[in-house]
């Protein structure tokens, strides 16, 4: 309060001057100096009060009392640090996940896509009308987009985007970044401004970079506009930076580059044939409604256009109908609802934490009754006392918020690390926006009010007589206990349900790991993806056989193979062949291509015939399901089939293999020989003697050395690759354990609070019993037992809730049993141990009772 010192000093001097003058006058009237001074003081009145009143005029006293209250609160918190720490900790436990989840929801749901009038934007898609279609909903291919754009009248603009990995050469290194190939009016149709830069230019190869890329890789310098950037070896000029809030239309995966489709096709003509295929439907078509055109009319036009396409292109579109929907408006509405549900659920968590803290504070109020009574006797008003309590609550809540925000920060930094390793790195930029701060601030206020008011009101009840006599007959806590007991029982139950579920999920994951996926993930295999490119970043062909020869020379490597398609890699699993059989309609079968011996290295079992060999230009492998389709008699090997118009001979039949996910139903699949020379990304697998993880780094280095300028991506063991595909299952286990642990910690703090309250209420009774000769152990037993009774009640309730649910799941999931050891035994043990731990500390306080002190009447 340094700033107020001059004014204080001046007032002091003014008063001193006044008193000096008066004293002088009195002395002039003949008083002795001492007498004169006293007379002056008498006439002046109470100096301290005058100062206080003047300060009130200045308006400082308000601040003063608040400061004093905060100081007082801090002193009280310091005096019982354990209890305060427990309160702060259990609140922070609720705050940290609340803020984290809210900020994720804020980013995903509440931040609208920064496009102009998102309600006018529709997405056009196809629907497969066949009942057993592999993919019921389909995106749009580039030629289809061009058809739509040239014919549709209801829209003022149609634009197209397609995700694409791109190799960027920058500052002497090459990085693979996510790019969106877009039609050249993309930004104008969406209504996204450039900042800085003009946007795509027509007269030169031109691209737009994301704000994140600009800051990360280009140091945010404005003079990069017009500079050249090498993408896949082709020179583009950077002609725009998207606004910071535009991270692409996808919520999570944000592209770093936007490149006009036509420019890309001109510079990489090899790509044109691929993009001209009508059945490569992996782009998103955005259409902006023409002003005044109703959405229904536009939808009707799109549907009739779809029917026309089905007639004109029967090979690819016969079963498809096109339709529109408004993803952005839907997303916004859905997002707000989801957020509301999330906030409500997080509110329950917070409510539990608040109830616990209220319990802790009530116990404290009970302990402070004597102090409160003395202060009331000295004239403290109830409002003043309530205010003090509330300030203390606010201080606790703020401390918890600080801790919770720090925790949220840590959680948010951990989040991206939990994602499986992806080929193109995701830049998951989370930040605390203004809405998150507002949410955190409201959490502090709401929680301080909800856990502080009841203890404040009860603790400040005018109760002079019994308070001063330390007579515990009338207790503050008297009424609260039953409802709190119920709450604790429910908390224990919730913790048990969550931990039980976590155990079951863990069990299920190990059951999933026992599923037959058609290959053996335990094999000693290391694998990595090679993207070959020249020094300038241009894509090159890889000589796979030369690379394999090189890898084969690594000591300890037994076998080497390359492949274009890999089981469980999450991409490339959707490729298809068109199978033509005489007398039947052509049908799609799953397809892929692999090098010689690749399937054998993964441990895919050959049921008949042999694996592919280097000379097998016209050979194909099929899985059992396809073999049965072709020849129910089981003699598929040696047969010829027409795939994508070419005649191939079946040389081997392999076991059905999970390709997209471990739950893949068996589908007909054919694997052709992958050409030994080709561009694009190629996976190399080495079978080694010994531990494959020792070879991950060696493999990466050898591949990088095999071709100058090549990028090596996701080098890992076969087991890691397999585990990455179980990402969702492992995340669910983690999530359940995290939630269960959270519930358990809250339960511990709640149990601690309630046993402490019980102890505070009955400490006098305990003292008398001790004085009468009861053993401390006996009384500790009483306190402990009361805590354990609640915990046991909660445990039974939790199991009663969770078990029937688990039984009903078990009836549908083979191999899933609710009687699993981690589910049942471990979770119950954890809950009971935690309950004992929570009750022990208050119970041990029995030992510190000095019967004489408590029983002695005041």
């Amino acid at each position, binding site marked *: 309060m340094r700033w107020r010192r001059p004014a204080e000093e001046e007032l002091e001097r003014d008063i001193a001057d006044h008193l000096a003058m008066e004293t002088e006058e009195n002395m002039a009237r003949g008083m002795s100096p001492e007498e004169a001074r006293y007379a002056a003081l008498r006439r002046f009145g109470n100096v301290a009060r*005058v100062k206080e009143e003047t300060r009130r005029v200045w308006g400082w006293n308000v601040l003063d009392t608040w400061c004093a209250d905060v100081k007082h609160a801090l002193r009280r918190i310091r005096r019982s640090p354990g209890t305060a720490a427990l309160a702060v900790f259990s609140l922070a436990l609720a705050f940290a996940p609340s803020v984290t989840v809210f900020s994720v929801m804020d980013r995903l749901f509440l931040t609208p896509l920064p496009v102009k009038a998102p309600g006018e934007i529709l997405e056009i898609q196809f629907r497969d009308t066949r009942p057993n279609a592999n993919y019921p909903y389909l995106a749009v291919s580039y030629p289809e987009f061009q058809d739509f754009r040239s014919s549709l009248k209801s829209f003022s603009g149609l634009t197209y985007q397609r995700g694409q990995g791109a190799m960027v050469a920058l500052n002497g290194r090459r990085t693979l970044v996510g790019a969106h190939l877009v039609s050249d009016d993309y930004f104008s149709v969406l209504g996204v401004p450039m900042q800085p830069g003009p946007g795509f230019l027509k007269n030169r190869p031109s691209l737009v970079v994301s704000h994140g890329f600009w800051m990360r890789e280009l140091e945010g310098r404005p003079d990069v506009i017009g500079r050249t950037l090498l993408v896949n070896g082709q020179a583009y000029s950077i002609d725009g930076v998207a606004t910071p809030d535009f991270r692409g239309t996808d919520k999570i995966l944000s592209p770093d580059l936007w490149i006009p489709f036509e420019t890309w096709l001109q510079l990489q003509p090899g790509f044109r044939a691929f993009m001209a295929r009508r059945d490569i439907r992996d782009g998103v078509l955005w259409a902006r409604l023409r002003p005044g055109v109703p959405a229904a009319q536009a939808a009707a036009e799109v549907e009739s256009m779809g029917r026309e396409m089905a007639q004109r292109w029967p090979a690819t579109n016969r079963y498809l109908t096109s339709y529109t929907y408004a993803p952005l408006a839907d997303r916004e509405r859905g997002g707000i609802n989801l957020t509301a549900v999330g906030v409500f659920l997080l509110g329950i968590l917070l409510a539990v934490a608040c109830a616990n803290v209220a319990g802790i504070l009530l116990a404290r109020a009970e302990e402070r009754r004597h102090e409160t009574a003395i202060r009331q006797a000295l004239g403290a008003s109830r409002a003043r006392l309530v205010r003090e309590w509330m300030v203390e609550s606010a201080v606790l809540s703020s401390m918890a918020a600080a801790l919770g925000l720090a925790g949220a920060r840590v959680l948010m930094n951990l989040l991206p690390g939990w994602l499986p390793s992806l080929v193109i790195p995701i830049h998951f930029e989370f930040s605390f926006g203004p809405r998150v701060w507002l949410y955190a601030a409201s959490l502090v206020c709401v929680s301080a009010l909800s856990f502080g008011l009841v203890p404040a009101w009860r603790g400040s009840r005018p109760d002079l007589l019994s308070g001063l006599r330390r007579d515990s007959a009338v207790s503050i806590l008297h009424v609260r206990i039953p409802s709190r007991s119920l709450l604790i029982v429910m908390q224990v139950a919730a913790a048990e349900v969550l931990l039980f579920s976590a155990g079951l999920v863990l069990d299920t994951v190990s059951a999933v790991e026992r599923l037959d996926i058609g290959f053996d993930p335990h094999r000693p295999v290391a694998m990595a993806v090679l993207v070959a490119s020249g020094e300038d970043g241009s894509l090159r062909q890889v000589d796979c056989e030369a690379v394999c020869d090189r890898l084969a020379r690594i000591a300890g490597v037994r076998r080497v193979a390359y492949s274009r398609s890999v089981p469980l890699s999450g991409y490339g699993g959707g490729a298809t062949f068109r199978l033509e059989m005489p007398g039947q309609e052509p049908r799609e079968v799953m397809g892929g291509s692999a090098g010689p011996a690749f399937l054998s290295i993964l441990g895919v079992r050959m049921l008949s015939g042999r694996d592919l060999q280097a000379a097998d230009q016209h050979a194909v492998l099929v899985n059992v399901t396809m073999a049965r389709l072709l020849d129910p008699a089981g003699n598929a090997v040696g047969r010829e089939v027409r795939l994508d118009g070419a005649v191939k001979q079946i040389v081997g039949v392999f076991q059905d293999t999970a390709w997209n996910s471990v739950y893949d139903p068996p589908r007909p699949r054919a694997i052709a020989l992958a050409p030994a020379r080709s561009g694009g990304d190629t996976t190399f697998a080495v079978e080694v003697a010994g531990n494959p993880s020792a070879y991950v780094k060696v493999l990466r280095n050898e591949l990088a050395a095999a071709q100058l300028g090549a990028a090596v991506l996701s080098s890992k063991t076969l087991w890691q690759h397999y585990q990455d595909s179980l990402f969702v299952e492992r995340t669910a286990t983690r999530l359940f354990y995290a939630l269960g642990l959270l519930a358990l910690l809250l339960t511990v703090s709640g149990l601690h609070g309630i046993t402490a309250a019980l102890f505070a209420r009955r400490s006098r009774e305990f003292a008398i019993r001790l004085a009468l000769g009861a053993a401390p152990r006996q009384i500790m037993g009483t306190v402990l037992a009361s805590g354990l009774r609640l915990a046991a009640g909660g445990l039974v309730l939790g199991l009663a809730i969770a078990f029937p649910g688990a039984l009903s799941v078990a009836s549908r999931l083979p191999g899933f049993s609710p009687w699993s050891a981690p589910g049942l035994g471990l979770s119950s043990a954890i809950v009971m141990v935690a309950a004992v731990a929570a009750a022990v500390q208050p119970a041990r306080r029995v030992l510190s009772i000095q019967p004489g002190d408590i029983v002695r009447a005041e």
Partner: protein
Amino acid sequence: MSTCDEKERVEFLQGTLDMLVLRTLLLGPAHGHAIAHAIERNSDDVLQVEQGSLYPALHRLIRRGWVQAEEGLSENNRRAKFYRLTAKGRKQLAIENTRWEKFAGAIARIMRPAEQMADL
């Protein structure tokens, strides 16, 4: 000390002290001690200021901009804080004055109606 008997002293009505301070300062800047004495003297010692209560009043007037504080020298050459009426304070005094006259007149009419006055 006061020459007046304790019983004849009058308690201040709410807000009148401020008005009296303003009125006193109309005569010229003065320090706190002088203001207290002036009020007592000018009311023939009927109004007894608890001298200390002057200071919150002065600071209130400063906050409202009716009075300014400045350093100066007192009669016997002591350094003292002088309070001076501002233009705004002068206007305020006129307002307070009118209000007071209305108030005092009204009280007087109630306490001594015209007919009673005639009877006396």
